[in-house]
Each structure stands twice: as C-alpha cells, then as structure tokens.
C-alpha cells in the first residue's frame, strides 16, 4: 500500500496564518484539531448532522467534518478560540451563553457559538422564529435548547447595548461585538432570571 500524497495548505485561522501538510482526505475538523492543535472545534458525528464541528469559513458557518482541509486553502477560518477579543474579553454571544446557562457539558457549544455569531452578524435582531430556524441545525443533548434560545435573545440585546454605547464598532465581524470589559461568568455572582 503506497504512501499518500501530501499537500501544503495555508489557512488564516482566527486571524493568524497557519500552514499544514495534509493528505487530500484530511477533514478540516481533523486538521484544525490535530494538525493545528485547535481542539475547541468538536466532532460529534462526522456525518454532518450534529453541528458540533461548525466553524466560520469566510464568515459563513460550515461543518468542518464535511469539508476537506485542502479545499479551504487560502481561506479564513474562525473557530471558538477566535470568538473572544484579543484581550480575552468574551464576545456578546459567549457572555450571553454564560448568563443564560446555555451550556451544560459544553460539547455542542463551539458549534452553537459559531452558528449564533454568524446568525447575529447577518441579522442583529432576529425574531423568535428566526432564532429557532437559525439554530435548528445544531444538536444539543443536554440543555433542551430553552436556555440556548434565551441566550441568543440575550446576545442580541447585549450587542445592541454595545452598539448604543459605541463600544462595539471596533470588533471584527467574526468575533461579534467585543464589549466593554465586564465580569465574566467566573465571578460567580448571583444572577436573576
């Protein structure tokens, strides 16, 4: 059995140019996780149904388990590792997920965060119908979705607030609005409903 041909590819991942040498059949999910060490992107089915592996390809959500790494040579990818601002401030979507308890085991979360980030970039004030539609391609086995829906609404609110406060304009599209620093979910303060 012969050795496989390898291809040199170059991707801009979370704003950084990354190179890899991969066989043609290398999945983008595997390339990100195992070649580039960005394990935040998760793989739940490897057949395009669960949405865990969703990343942003030039700003658009795609399933990295259905994408060959060689096919995105030269493109821009955003993964969960690239959603917070460079100083570590969580994006509106990330904060909203923490506030709304929209994650339990966290395995589906990278896919939801990427999906919702793209959704709100395209439609900053989605209706309930549009939210449901927007997240209807991602499975979560833990939360029952109720708090994810709540988080999307909250993220839209937070982004709008930042927009109003004029703190959001510098945020790159893919990272969502990077708001004024505020306590992250780790402060453990009691939050109301």
């Amino acid at each position: 059995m012969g050795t496989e041909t390898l291809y040199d590819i170059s991707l801009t991942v979370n704003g950084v140019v990354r190179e890899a040498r991969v066989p043609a059949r290398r999945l983008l999910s595997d390339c990100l996780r195992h070649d580039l060490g960005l394990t935040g992107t998760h793989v739940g089915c490897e057949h395009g149904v669960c949405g865990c592996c969703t990343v942003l390809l030039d700003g658009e959500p795609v399933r990295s388990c259905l994408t060959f790494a060689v096919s995105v040579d030269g493109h821009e990818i955003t993964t969960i590792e690239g959603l917070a601002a460079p100083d570590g401030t969580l994006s509106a979507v990330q904060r909203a997920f923490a506030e709304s308890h929209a994650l339990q085991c966290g395995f589906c979360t990278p896919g939801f965060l990427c999906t919702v980030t793209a959704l709100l970039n395209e439609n900053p004030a989605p209706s309930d119908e549009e939210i449901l539609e927007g997240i209807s391609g991602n499975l979560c086995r833990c939360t029952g979705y109720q708090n994810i829906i709540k988080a999307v609404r909250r993220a839209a609110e937070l982004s709008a607030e930042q927009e109003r406060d004029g703190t959001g304009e510098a945020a790159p599209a893919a990272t969502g609005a990077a708001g004024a620093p505020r306590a992250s979910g780790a402060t453990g303060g009691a939050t109301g409903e």
Partner: protein
Amino acid sequence: MTTSLFGERVQRLEDPRLLTGNGRYLDDLGRDALAAAFVRSPHAHARIREINVDRALDVPGIVAIYTWEDLPERIGEPLPLLIPHPALTHGRTARPLAKDVVRHVGEPVVMVVARDRYAAEDACDRIEVEYEPLPAVVGIENAVRGEHLVHPDVPGNVGAHLVQEVPSADGRSAAEMIEAAPHRLEFRLDIERSASMPLEGRGVYARWDPDDGSLRVYSSTQTSTSVRMAIAAKLGLPLPKVEVIAPDVGGGFGVKIMHPWPEEVLIPWAARTLGREIKWTEDRREHFISSAHERGQVQYVRVGFDDDGRILGLDVTFLHDHGAYTPYGIIVPIITSTQLLGPYKPGAYRVEFSSVYTNTVIVTPYRGAGRPQGVFCMERTMDRIAAYLGKDRTEVRAANFIQPDEFPYDHRLTFQDGRPLIYDSGNYPEALRMLKELIGWDEFAKERERAAAEGRRIGIGIGCYVEGTGVGPYEGGHVQVTSDGRVHVSTGLTSQGQGHQTAFAQIAATELGVPIERVSVVTGDTRRFGYAVGTFASRAAVMSGNAIALACRKVREKALRIAADALEADPGDLTITDGIVHVKGNPSASIPLSTVAVLANPLRYAFDEEAKRATQFATAASDDKPPVAEGEEPGLEGRDYYSPVRSTFAYGMHAAIVETDPETAEIKVLRYAVVHDCGRLINPMIVDGQIHGGVAQGIGGALYERMVYDEHGQLLNASFMDFLMPYATEVPRVETAHLETPSPLNPLGIKGAGEAGVIPVSAVIASAIEDAEGIPIMKMPISPSELFHLRRTASARVG
C-alpha cells in the same frame, strides 16, 4: 456574615473555559498518541472461522494488530459482571475481543494500533474475518420463545427472573385483591429502545511511564475510581501505580457509568505492552453499535380497583430486553419493578420480571434507568382506570397518593441498592395542586372546545413519578485551604455537564465563609481523590455535596481552633466572613484564613514571606508540647465521607398539552409543565437546566427515538441521520415550579435532580395524545404514521 451562596443562581465556574475552546475532552488530549481502531462484527450472531490480517500489515503507519489470541490470559477473560444479583442466575459478559462467537453487531473482534486514526482505519478495512452466521435472536418475544439461543448454556434466553410481592395490610395477595375488587382491567404495554447518545462518544487515552512503572489513563467515563480498580486488577498492577482521570466529558446520561468497556482494558494494556501512548476515540457509528442502549420492555398489567379508582391490587409481569450480555446486572428491571409504584400505595402489589438475552447491543442504565418504563406502566394504568370509571384523571391519582403525614413510607420492597424501599419525604397532593394550576387543568375542557370549533384537536396529559436518588454506598470530599487563602475541593465522582464545579463550590463557600472565586473543585481525578462510586442515579449533589459540606465543617472547626489560639479568644465566639476569621461582633479582632493555613502547618523552612510565620523560631508555641498537637494533623484540610442509610426520594409531576393534526397525524407539544421537588436547591439555575434537558430527552424518547433492528439484528438507523434526536424545533418550552421538601436523611436536606426531567415524559405524552384522539395509546414511542394507523384501526372497529 457572608451571604450564603447556597440556593443562588450562581453562574457556572466551568463556563469561561468551555466558552473559549479551553475545555479538555478526551480526544483533545494526547495529540501525539498512537491511535487505535477496531474491526467489529457485522453479524448479530456468528462463529468466527478465521481472521486474516496479512493485507493490513503493509499499511503505512501500522504499529500492531491484536486478536483475542494475542491477549494474555487475564486480559482475554470475560469482563467483570459488575453488579451480581441472586436472581441473575445466568449472567454472561463479553471478552474485550471476541473469542469464537460474536453476539451482536458491533462486538469488537480485532484491535489495530497505528500512527493515526486514518491509518488504523485503513488497516481495519484490510483485515478479513470469515464468519459463519448463526440464527439471530431479535425482539423480546422471539427471545422468550427460545427457539434460538444467544448463549447455548442459557435456556430460554432468560438471564434473570425476579418476583417481589407485597400483600395487603390484612395479608391478602395481589391476585386475591384483584379477584375481590369491584372493577378489574388487564392490558399490555410496550416501550422501545433508545439510548443515552451523548454528543461526545466514549474514549480512552493511556500513557505508560516506563521509568516509573506507572500508568495514567484518561477515560470519558462516569466513574474514574472504579475504572482504575478494574484496570489495576486486569493488568495486575499495584493500585497506586494506576491513575484514572475523567477529563471534561461531553455528556454521559448513563452510558458512561458502564465499565470497564473493552477499550478501557485494551488501550491501557496495549499502551503498556508497546510502551507508547495510545488513544481511542469512539466514532458515532461505533457508539450506536457498541455502546449501550436502554428502555425496551413489554409489560402485562392486571389491576383491581374500587369505585373511587383506588388500586386494591396490582400485578405487573414484564419482559426486559438486556441485549447480548449482562455486565451491569439487572439494575434496570429492578428499578422498573420498584419505582413503578410512584407516589401511590396500591393495596397489594406483585411484580415479576424476566430479563432476556437478544443478539443486540447491551442494555445498561440510560438517564431514568428503568423508571420511564415503570412510570409509563403505572400512569397508563391510572388513565385506564379513570377512563373506565369516567373520572378525571387527576382525581384517580389523588385517591391513590401517599399522604404527607405518612412519611417515612415503607413500600416493603427491596430497592436497587439492596435496601428497603422507604420514601423519606414529600407532599404529593400539593404538587398535584400546583401542577393543575400551572397547566390550567380545570380550564382545559373549555380550551379543547374552542380548539375543536376551529377544527383543531388538542389533548392534555399528566404523569407523576417518584425517583430514588442519591443511592449509596458513599462519596467523599477533601477540602484544603492553602496559605494563599485558596480553597481546593476534590471529590471522586465525575462530571458530565452537571455544573459540579459550581454547585460544590457554592457549598464550600457557604460552609467556610469564603468568596466563591477562591474555591476550585476537582472531580473524577483519582490523583486527587481515590475513593468514590460514580455519577449516576441523580446522586452527585446528594452524595458528594454532603461529603464536601462535612469536610468543610471539619476544616472550619480546625480553623476556628487555630485562630482562637492566635486571637486568644474562644472558638465559639469566632466566625468566618469573606475568608477572614474574626470575633463575632468585633471585626477588628481577626486573622485571615490564609494565615490560619500557615499556622496549621508548623514549618522548619521559610519558602516565602507568609511561611516565615510558621517556622520554628517564629512561633510562640510552648516548649513542652509537640508542634503538631496530639490528635491533630499538619495543614488546614479535612476529609469526610457521606454514606446514607438509604436513598432520598425526589418526585415530580408533569403535564403537557399536545395537538394532533386531524389529517397528517402530526403530533406537536404545545405546552409542557413541570412541578418538581428535589429538596433544597443548591443552584436553581442548574436544576432547571437539568429538567429542561431531561424533558427534551423524554420528548425524543416519546416521539422520535428508537433503535430499529431488523430480523437479522442489523441496527438500521445507526447514525444521526436516521436516529432522530430532537433539535430546538422539536422541543417545547418547559414551564417549571419547585416545591422544596427537605430530605431528613442528609445534612443539606437535598435530593437528586439529574434524571427527573426525562422520567414521566412518555407517560405524559401518551396520556395527552390519548386525550386528544380518544384512542388508547399502549406503545411508545409513537410516530405520526403509527398514530395514523391507530386511527384507521379504531375507526374500522367502530365502522
């Protein structure tokens, strides 16, 4: 006084990590490890004639190939039967790799180790296994017919048979009571298989350290301590040379409490044999065909009751499909047979089950663990009785409730922990009142009329359950305050998304009077805590929560003792606020907990400024006493265990309103309401989250999910494309209300909540569809096409 964090909606401490891609799940570890992959049986039942690996040997990157013959004796033996039971007379377990015969599709036959997963799978593809197919036993009824056998030495395919019988107060049997009852009913109920289906499958990563002669294993498991003992036993290693860590786990829901899985034995063994790091990450198809399923049962009910619907005698006989092997014993049918009783007190009860072998994937607990089937049985019975008597369904239930003044209530049965089934506390009538109010039960008739006038068909359903939570034997907690004032908490059981790091930190912060930011919690790491049972049966909060509270109380007591010495005060006059020990009512007479931690550890060497204060020439300790007083230990730390006499019993009642399409028979859940009592709540936000997720799984099990086996034992829907788990579009919003009846059994007064949401859902949805359609719903799950057929049969019967 620090405000108590117990009971607050504290945001989760695990989230910042998980929201930024910094979680560490099994497959995120061991980037340079070799990868393992398995050749699995494509047949449900077959004899292995020959295995030829020649063509795999020249796959680039191949490292090793193992069949059963290559395994040393202890590794190749059948895996342990984890929970033996006298009624399990014919328990059988699989070997890590099949020897001679395979008994379900997916059973591992050959293990390949290679440079990466791609190479390992290439090699698997080139391995030729010659099988001689044998007749497959599929379906409960085929199994009991016993025409073909799964194991030649298990007659009739019956692995276990158990009868429990509770006579009436005046000593009459269930059969007698039923005979003598004014009314009697008899019917059959069916529930199909589903599965836990966490989004992260299983996985094992093992590192052998040849210099140290030690093994470190990471496993996506619900019990690292027990996996550790199993590995040490199998590999013949001293226990202290094996460590097992459950990293971040992407959901468990029961399937990961099963252990040791074949891979949990084989990967560590191969890592040691090859002296290399090896990792195996299950893929989705593997999860469907080689991890566990649950739920499949056929139930036969006989019930006798009076004019009020009070059950005088109940006799349930059921068949439970446990798949090809019984590594987890018969816990699931035992739970069904006992928890079936729910909040009710039938006059006399008899239950009998047979647990049978089929050539399908093994059955081990899936969230709810036999309770959804039991509740389905009891709640369908309640609805049947109500229909028969023309009574409101809630009235019949109320007539059968155990009353608040009857606790502790002894059912005179043996529960899954081998202890008597005695309920600790509850208020069922109040829960029912709350539920009726929440869903608008009494106003529903009008709503139905309005809908009917618009040509719409709607129905309301109800389901009640009681859940034994927090089963023993024990859990422990260790709490250490270090000289920087940080509090390190560890407990042996594992986490799969339940927010233990937060809930346990809330408990520790409250008990010790420290800010929660200073508390960190480690779970499921045997390096930190070696004694534990595991996370299942909604037991984590009850067991580890209480153990951690008790350990904190020890630490607090010690801190106050040391501080009292330093402050020349009476320990009884001291308290801790915000990490500072001070005299009550006099905050200026104080000493930080960090300093107390320094003083708790008499030192010879000063490694930093703080430490200086505890060195031998710095302290004013008296010369005639040992620096560590008798009965004391150095350090500000404590360890304690919580071991309850028996389980706590949480309960709840759910109601739903569904709409069925008169033409397409599509079923839509319009509203879903939950009243829930799990004692005192540590973090209501987390408890609500558990309920939402449980209900969603329940909806999946009621309307969408089933394991479709054909007659040859092929699982036809082994992918997310064909096994329909609900998306956001299928799950209703859940409206919740809580009752908080503290458990008298533990210091914190808590009961478990992990499984609550899922338990009654099939019963509730069946009840609601039946109400909408006027057709008895006796089988779950139900799809639109099945409802369509039921309508047809029903109208044919009428017409």
